[in-house]
């Protein structure tokens, strides 16, 4: 809850401050140079160009991934498609890496990041977050033979995480005693757990719950660790117009329960009964605990 509150505050502060600063000359420059320098495109420029560039994961099923036909799919992509449709433009997805999502925005390689981007203080110093569209808590999965039921049990043990995820940040800050084994890919992390390279694995609880169902001998001993974090779209710092537009969009999408639909389409087939949509979906940017 606190994480959400602080982040949205930061967002609001920034937007009110910088609203007036986008001048006409800047716009013209940008229009000419497209994305060749470090400043993001304005809403207008995006509409003009007829295409929006969104950074998503290409290997984090079911949030953002590429299916066997080479199409982008997932919970994040579902939203991305809708944003493009409502803007009346085409969408181009750019695959991003967990560790470099901030860089993509800072250097204006994309207009929006929709890559399961957890809202944190450090990140909010670098980018502007819009309203959240999802919430998560961390879960810890471990072998039944040595089930971890409390995070403190991990002290001195090896915990497997994926790079750039909330779990990495959370354990680095709160449990410095825990040895972290970090991988670029989720599947690598899971494989490492299967191969016994660590004592447990931590990531979003929905994710571990679903995985534990598929893999005998492993259970989720901790299913809601730490604060509930929110996940939100992000834009480059100071790109207020775009940010406002996204916020409005998220609010208005609540009317049609868009994110519940999204859940049914993308997450339910993967997670099945393991997760409850209400523990995950956020409508209209409002967290109701």
């Amino acid at each position, binding site marked *: 809850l606190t994480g959400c509150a602080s982040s949205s505050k930061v967002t609001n502060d920034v937007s009110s401050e910088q609203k007036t600063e986008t001048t006409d000359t800047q716009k013209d420059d940008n229009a000419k140079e497209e994305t060749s320098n470090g400043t993001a495109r304005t809403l207008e420029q995006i509409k003009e160009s007829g295409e929006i560039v969104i950074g998503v994961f290409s290997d984090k099923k079911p949030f953002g991934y590429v299916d066997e036909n080479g199409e982008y799919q997932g919970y994040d992509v579902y939203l991305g498609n809708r944003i493009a449709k409502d803007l009346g433009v085409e969408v181009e997805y750019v695959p991003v890496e967990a*560790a470099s999502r901030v860089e993509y925005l800072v250097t204006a390689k994309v207009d929006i990041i929709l890559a399961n981007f957890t809202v944190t203080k450090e990140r909010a110093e670098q980018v502007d977050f819009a309203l959240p569209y999802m919430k998560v808590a961390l879960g810890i999965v471990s072998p039944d033979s040595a089930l971890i039921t409390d995070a403190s049990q991990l002290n001195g043990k090896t915990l497997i995480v994926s790079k750039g995820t909330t779990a990495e940040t959370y354990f680095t800050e709160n449990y410095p005693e825990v040895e972290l*084994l970090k991988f670029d890919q989720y599947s*690598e992390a899971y494989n*490492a757990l*299967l191969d016994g390279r660590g004592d447990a694995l931590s990531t979003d609880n929905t994710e571990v719950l679903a995985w534990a169902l598929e893999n005998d001998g492993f259970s989720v001993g901790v299913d809601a660790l730490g604060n509930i974090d929110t996940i939100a779209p992000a834009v480059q710092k100071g790109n207020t117009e775009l940010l406002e537009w996204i916020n409005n969009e998220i609010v208005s999408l609540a009317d049609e329960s868009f994110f519940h639909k999204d859940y049914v389409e993308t997450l339910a087939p993967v997670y099945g009964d393991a997760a409850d949509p209400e523990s995950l979906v956020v409508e209209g940017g409002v967290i109701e605990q």
Partner: protein
Amino acid sequence: MDIQFISKYLPMYVEAARLTVFIAFIGILFSVLLGFICSLIRYIKIPILHKIVDIYIELSRNTPLLIQLFFLYFGLPKIGIRLSSESCAIAGLVFLGGSYMAEAFRSGLESIPNIQRESGLSIGLTKMQVFLYIILPQAVTVSIPAFSANVIFLIKETSVFSAVALADLMYVAKDLIGLYYKTDEALLMLVMAYLVILLPVSIIFTLIERKMRYAGFGNQSSF
């Protein structure tokens, strides 16, 4: 540039550099051993073994280390062989380095003119003695430039070990970028670390090579 940040995370780099050097050292040591054995097998043409060595060398030289590592680290456990990050890194480095070293030694062995072997034989040495006293010392000397190039190449290749979760220099740098967005500082320290490790190695080898090239046997004064 955030000096505080740099000093805070410097120990992490030192630790990582130590690990990098350790892995590189062990890996190169075994590479030399493996390469030497392989080149011997090819030189003597031990029947079946030498075909196997040929295949190994082609496979190792024509595929990237990263893929070799993924295979060792994520592939092998599926058939029941589990290696730690460290052993995997060493195994990968040796798999790659062995073939490069073998080629270096081979070119050394091949560069020794046949007349050297024959004149060794003609003063009544056995084949083994000819190899030990005449061929080998010359071949090793000839291989030194290729050998030193390989050592630097292999140390550089350690940078991909971060991909199998080995906490080497690259891994630490990526971590700092991913966690704290201190790109400049992390990259600066990364470059410095590699310079500190590789510059002395490179200089030492350049000196040795120059000595070999210009002085050859018995003209040390000219260097």
